[in-house]
């Protein structure tokens, strides 16, 4: 094989790469356009704000999940972590523990719990040598159990209005096409708050480069002086931290804490990430990918409701979408 043919192949690969990115965004916009034509209720300031609100939490989970997947791992526990921290923050708020029961204290402690869970995952993967799939599958089960044990199976209702009000509030806005005012939901701002540092970490910091290097070839990374253990810790801490953040937002949005919440969200997060171009073999992924991926899933969800489709169709559509998108991805990476 000569170098020229290779570089041509490569250029073709890059064009497909860009194409895939545009296709995803295009797919999202086409879905929006179709739903705007088909229904009168979709393209309204109210519904679109609602869509952003609905998509926000999976988006945050998916961004975190992507960090674990890029290293060649996986985090199956993100749904359980979100449920567990929704319970944690609620439990702290309804008790009277001084600072820990203020909003700031409860949120900070819940996020710290997320970090701790991430450290534990990385400990299992790095120090105990467990496969990430097994380690996070185990905590997925265990965390739900611990949460149920603490709450004794009951739901904690949050009475703190300042806390729950945050999820309904919005910040800034602009005039919508129909003359009404579009208010950007606070929950969506939270996605931005997560995505920007995540982007900087992944794309502009050396730790981001190391994450990709580990996902591509752990031994080569190690022999190039990469602290493989530390970077693996980073990946799982980011994943669990995002999940904990999602759990706090979840508690705000539904006003309760319950460790069984967010059931199955880990699979939605993985699906969003994969639709967004992340490779489950590692070393391929971005921040914008899972972001778009999660809003594609949310749009399917939202649109199906508005179209009065049988909700079971949402799952079927999602399934086929994953096949199609990943098929395009294999086309992109397949050698001649």
């Amino acid at each position, binding site marked *: *094989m000569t*170098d020229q043919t290779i*570089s041509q192949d*490569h250029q073709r690969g890059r064009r497909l790469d860009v194409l895939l990115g545009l296709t995803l965004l295009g797919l999202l916009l086409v879905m929006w356009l179709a739903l705007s034509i088909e229904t009168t209720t979709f393209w309204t300031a109210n519904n679109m704000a609602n869509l952003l609100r609905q998509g926000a939490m999976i988006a945050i989970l998916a961004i975190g999940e992507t960090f674990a997947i890029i290293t060649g791992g996986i985090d199956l526990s993100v749904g359980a972590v979100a449920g567990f921290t929704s319970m944690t923050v609620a439990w702290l708020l309804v008790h009277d523990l001084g600072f820990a029961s203020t909003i700031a204290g409860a949120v900070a402690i819940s996020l710290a719990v997320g970090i701790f869970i991430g450290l534990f995952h990385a400990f299992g993967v790095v120090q105990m040598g467990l496969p990430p799939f097994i380690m996070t599958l185990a905590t997925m089960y265990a965390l739900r159990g611990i949460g149920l044990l603490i709450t004794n199976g009951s739901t904690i209702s949050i009475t703190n209005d300042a806390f729950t009000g945050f999820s309904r509030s919005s910040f800034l806005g602009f005039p919508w096409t129909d003359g009404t005012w579009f208010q950007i939901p606070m929950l969506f701002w939270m996605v931005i708050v997560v995505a920007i540092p995540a982007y900087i970490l992944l794309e502009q910091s*050396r730790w981001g480069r*190391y994450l990709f*290097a580990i996902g591509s070839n752990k031994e*080569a*990374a190690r*022999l190039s002086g990469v602290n493989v253990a530390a970077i693996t810790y980073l990946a799982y801490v980011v994943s669990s931290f995002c999940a904990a953040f999602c759990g706090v937002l979840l508690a705000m949005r539904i006003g309760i804490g319950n460790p069984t919440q967010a059931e199955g969200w880990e699979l939605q997060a993985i699906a969003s990430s994969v639709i967004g171009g992340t490779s489950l073999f590692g070393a391929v992924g971005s921040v914008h990918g899972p972001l778009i991926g999660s809003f594609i899933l949310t749009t399917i969800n939202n649109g199906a409701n508005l179209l009065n489709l049988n909700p079971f169709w949402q799952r079927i559509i999602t399934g086929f979408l994953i096949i199609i998108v990943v098929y395009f991805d294999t086309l992109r990476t397949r050698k001649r």
Partner: protein
Amino acid sequence: MASVESAVPNAGAPILALEKLDKRFGATHALRTVDLTFDEGEIHAIVGENGAGKSTLIKLLTGVYPRSSGDVFWHGAPVALATPHEAINLGINAVHQEVVLCPHLTVAANIFLGDEEMRGGLLNKKRMVRDAQALLDDLGFSLPAGALLSSLTIGQQQLVATARAERRGAKFLIFDEPTAYLTRQEAAALFKLIRRLKASGVTIVYISHRLEEVFELCDRVSVLRDGALVGTRKVSETNEADLIALMIARKIEQIYHKDAVPIGETIMETHALTGPGFQDVSIRVREGEVVGLYGLIGAGRSEFVQSVFGRRPATSGRIVWRGKDVSIRNERQAMNLGIALSPESRRDQGLCLSLGVGLNINLPIFKLLSIGPLINLTREAECADKQIRDVQIKTSSRMAPVTSLSGGNQQKVVIGKWLNHGAKLFIFDEPTVGVDVGTKAEIYRLLGSLLKQGAGIIMISSYLPEVYELADTLHVFRAGRLVATHGHKDASHEAILTEAIGV
């Protein structure tokens, strides 16, 4: 050999003839009107630099790619060779450099893969193991047919791949760099097998970078350059210099050219260093010095340098760096002292294959390119581009994945990534494996420029002429121990080889 040839009925008649064989990939002309005949029962070497078209030729012959134009004749009859299946049915098989078998299956299962023996709709495992064992014994390999393939060395796996081709009734067998990862004994076993196959009338195409193997084994040799056939010679009527001149079109007077560099102060010493896979090794590396480590594969050389680099820390003994005792417990400590290691296997240890050339080159030095955790993206790009230029890596851009590069260019990435790090001691473990002559010369030049900057080099090689010519001090390893030390060319090849084998 004459008696062997007369034993073959059609010896000498062309088994496969290529006429004006041409292959284009888009705008690239990978093979240019190649006319070539292979005689039945001969061992025909094909040599050429990386990118000369050897791989393309193999892929056309094995039906992996269709040709763009030209004709192929098998025993004088035109054939399409459009699919791998057709090639196999004709009796054309290839044994690849990197074994493409299933590591988790047994030797027997691999030999019978795709053509299993059945009984009543179920696999007849017992019979396959028995038949495979009979085949292996018949070929003269002492390999257990029931063992898992992954429990064998790469060399043994290569023998299994050959046995598999043999069983499929190969009449025309292509070996693509078969000895790249083999020990000397394994290579000897393979050569014996190839000669047996030849004696039984199989035509062999032998592709290798190691010219000495061509002279040892082959009857004729064809040289490819830039996709064109530049000559076919009888091996008995040519020599190494001739072939090299044909291959690279420019005369390399002395591949192993090395400027005299004054030897300076001691950079590093080891005293009775012992670790996993080696014992009691004491060496010294000085500024401007090449310390060669020669031995058979598995003699403990790689293990020793990996300990020096902190990958598998030493268990006892001392490492002295610039006169001070140091403890090297991980790779980062070694790098901070000023040690660089370019590992043996570029695929497994050297490169993040799926990632860009630039990222691979910068991987050891991201700390230097960053302010805090944040990378200075301009400097990152400049640094990668500079290194691609300096080391002359042929790539479309720094973003191109390393997989898109040829082997020689990949090796330049493995070596090039350490040149910006400011190391004082460079360890090169088999720096020229699977690399063509032109690239080899470039790599040696690179080594020379490091020496001039006052660096010291430890160089491991299983190719004796290389370390023999380049090393100022040559240590011979055997079974995990340092068994002999020589100055520059102060012993014969035979003497050094004898020490390495330990007969």
